[in-house]
């Protein structure tokens, strides 16, 4: 007998927070806004924790996962299609929920300090709670449609928060860009759902899995198409090639938002979705390899761009894209648990890095340019310490969290035959680049001489420090559980990684050593470039001007999309649709309709002359006509006329 877990409370509480702050926040005192905003995610986290504890044998026991909670009122009930509001708690969603509500709560605390002096404090927190509501719906959803609701909702929250400083044109534009680019991905998700409905007749994940399990021979074909459509959705939300372009611009939002939505949780929704629908991908080797290639390509691509960015948040943004690429790579070699593992550790250390960056930016008065920082370690010792932890974690040093998860992905890739070696190699190069650009950031921001004009003036409030320290601790020990135990825990949800003949413990050790080796190499290179010989980067840039320019301009991808997609679309909207269709066709049709009415009106108007005698004449004429009709014996006339006609015909 399952004890009730009250899963519905998890999204409901942040939603209540959203309603209270969103509707009344303007009039509420600030402390009340803060209380509501913090209590909502804390309570949600408590519910999740309660579920987790009962799962592990504390409190009311849950005999079995997945635990299903369905709203008694059906949502859609048409013909054979039944869709419920159903929440599913299994190992996968449990891990994700802990990350979302836990890290989410920490970032809420951080925001209290960070946003303290901002306009629209209540608005910010209502959006943040709204985001948590949709994100938990997305994670808990038992069917694809409900997941889609959450999926769209987090996109909305992301849009609102990127454009939080809506008076700034660049922020408003970035919000629109994120939303529009995501729409392209959502289109893929929608098509995927339609195909699922057409081929499976259901959108419930468990039923899809059952149907596939009943047909083990069903491979590829339509499943590949469905999987690729879902992948398109995932590339949009998770900022993968070719739809990654919105994420760097999303840094226009407040920094805690970048930490929560654009690093730790929302952007990992694509990875989560692939893991959630992994049975489809398992039945389509082609789609899986596409996932792996997209992931590997994105990881390398974004890492190279991150090398030369000067905005601290942009470096982290490209780093996020790159790390998400790792997760896709992991999914692509069917190592879903390794991907989710990396998702979790990444949520810790990337949230940490973003929050630390926010703390730096906050302290030096909004400056984001790495070239104008330097020497901050003395002034911001806590931030420096936690950033160091974060950098070590993302670079993959033992025993920090990133080491375990990144290693698990690299190892899973390596043992997948020849193509796996290529993927592993790309991953390794990416690890080298990751280490390099993260230490570059570290050196530029914290070490060396100060290049800043304005001195740090804000002291960092405790509300910002506490989350930093907690996340720092998590970044250290978040990976200690080890991929073995983590994968064993997740296996009921996402299946076990197929074991290949190449695997062995020594190989795993060698791969780990290789990963740490490249991380050290990256550190060493960054040390040469940015500590020992600070003139080196400029020299290198001068040696390879073309390469540098290409990287600094992010491969001109935005320009390319601008020229190939945005310009033609704008041209089409402005001239073809606007100029021709709207003005000429639609406008012309409206003009024609109006003109016809006007013209016929002008003709009929003559009848209504206002002249009494003409009315009288019409009256008389009408009376005469009626008289004629009544007096003349028409039937006789007609009969005689037809007789004449037949008489003629008779001749």
């Amino acid at each position, binding site marked *: 007998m399952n004890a009730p877990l009250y899963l519905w409370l998890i999204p409901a509480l942040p939603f209540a927070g959203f309603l209270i702050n969103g509707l009344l926040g303007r009039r509420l005192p600030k402390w009340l806004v803060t209380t509501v905003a913090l209590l909502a995610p804390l309570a949600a986290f408590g519910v999740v924790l309660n579920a987790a504890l009962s799962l592990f044998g504390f409190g009311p026991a849950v005999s079995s996962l997945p635990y299903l909670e369905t709203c008694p009122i059906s949502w859609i009930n048409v013909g054979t299609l039944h869709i419920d509001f159903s929440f599913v708690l299994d190992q996968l969603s449990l891990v994700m929920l802990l990350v979302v509500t836990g890290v989410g709560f920490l970032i809420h605390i951080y925001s209290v300090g960070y946003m303290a002096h901002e306009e629209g404090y209540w608005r910010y927190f209502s959006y943040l709670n709204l985001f948590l509501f949709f994100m938990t719906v997305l994670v808990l959803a038992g069917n694809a449609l409900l997941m889609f609701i959450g999926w769209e909702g987090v996109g909305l929250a992301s849009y609102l928060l990127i454009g939080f400083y809506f008076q700034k044109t660049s922020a408003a534009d970035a919000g629109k860009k994120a939303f529009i680019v995501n729409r392209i991905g959502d289109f893929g998700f929608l098509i995927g759902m339609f195909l699922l409905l057409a081929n499976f007749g259901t959108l419930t994940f468990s039923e899809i899995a059952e149907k596939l399990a009943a047909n083990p021979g069903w491979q590829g074909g339509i499943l590949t198409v469905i999987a690729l459509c879902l992948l398109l959705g995932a590339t949009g939300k998770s900022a993968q090639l070719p739809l990654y372009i919105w994420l760097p611009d999303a840094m226009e939002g407040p920094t805690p938002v970048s930490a929560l939505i654009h690093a730790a949780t929302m952007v990992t929704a694509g990875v989560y979705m692939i893991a959630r629908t992994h049975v489809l991908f398992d039945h389509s080797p082609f789609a899986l390899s596409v996932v792996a290639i997209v992931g590997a390509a994105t990881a390398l691509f974004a890492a190279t761009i991150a090398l030369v960015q000067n905005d601290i948040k942009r470096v982290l943004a490209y780093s996020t894209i790159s790390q998400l690429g790792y997760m896709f790579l992991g999914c692509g070699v069917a190592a879903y648990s390794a991907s989710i593992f990396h998702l979790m550790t990444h949520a810790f250390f990337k949230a940490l890095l973003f929050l630390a960056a926010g703390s730096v930016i906050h302290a030096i008065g909004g400056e984001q340019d790495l070239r104008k920082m330097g020497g901050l370690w003395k002034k911001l010792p806590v931030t420096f310490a936690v950033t160091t932890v974060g950098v070590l974690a993302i670079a993959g040093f033992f025993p920090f969290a990133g080491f375990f998860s990144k290693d698990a992905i690299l190892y899973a890739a390596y043992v997948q035959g020849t193509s796996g070696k290529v993927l592993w190699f790309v991953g390794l190069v990416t690890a080298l680049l990751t280490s390099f650009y993260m230490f570059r950031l570290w050196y530029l921001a914290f070490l060396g001489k100060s290049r800043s004009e304005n001195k740090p003036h804000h002291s960092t409030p405790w509300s910002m420090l506490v989350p930093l320290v907690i996340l720092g601790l998590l970044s250290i020990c978040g990976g200690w559980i080890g991929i073995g135990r983590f994968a064993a825990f997740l296996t009921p949800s996402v299946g076990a990684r197929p074991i290949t003949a190449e695997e062995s413990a020594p190989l795993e050790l060698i791969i780990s050593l290789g990963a740490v080796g490249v991380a050290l190499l990256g550190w060493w290179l960054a040390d040469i470039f940015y500590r020992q010989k600070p003139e080196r980067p400029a020299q290198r840039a001068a040696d390879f001007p073309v390469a540098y320019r290409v990287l600094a301009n992010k491969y001109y991808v935005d320009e390319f999309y601008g020229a190939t997609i945005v310009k033609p679309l704008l041209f089409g909207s402005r001239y073809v649709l606007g100029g021709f269709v709207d003005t000429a066709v639609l406008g012309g049709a409206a003009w024609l309709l109006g003109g016809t009415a006007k013209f016929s009106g002008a003709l009929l108007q003559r009848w*209504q002359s*206002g002249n009494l*005698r003409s009315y009288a004449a019409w009256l*008389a004429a009408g009376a005469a006509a009626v008289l004629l009709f009544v007096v003349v014996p028409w039937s006789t006339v007609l009969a005689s006329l037809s007789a004449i006609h037949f008489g003629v015909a008779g001749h």
Partner: protein
Amino acid sequence: MNSLLSQDVPLSWYLLLSAVLFSLGIAGFLIKRNLITVFMSIELMLNAVNLSFVTFAHQWHEVKGQIFVFFVMMVAAAEAAVGLAIIIAVFRARATLAVDRIDLMKL
């Protein structure tokens, strides 16, 4: 007296007279420019119809025709009162009774 009339003057003459009067009324109604003349033309048409009513009533020895005539006369009297009032109002407002110039209903 009645029988004398019916013997001396054939029915068709009365009807013919009625038709002529009615046509004159119509012609006046259409042609005349003075509103009062138009009004009188309408009265003429009404009385032409009254004549045919009386003729038929006599012909068929029916009282209904006679009664109808009273009705018509009564309505005509009312109409004359209202119509003249309107004409006076129009004249006060526009200082003319020319039908062609009373065209306020025109757009």
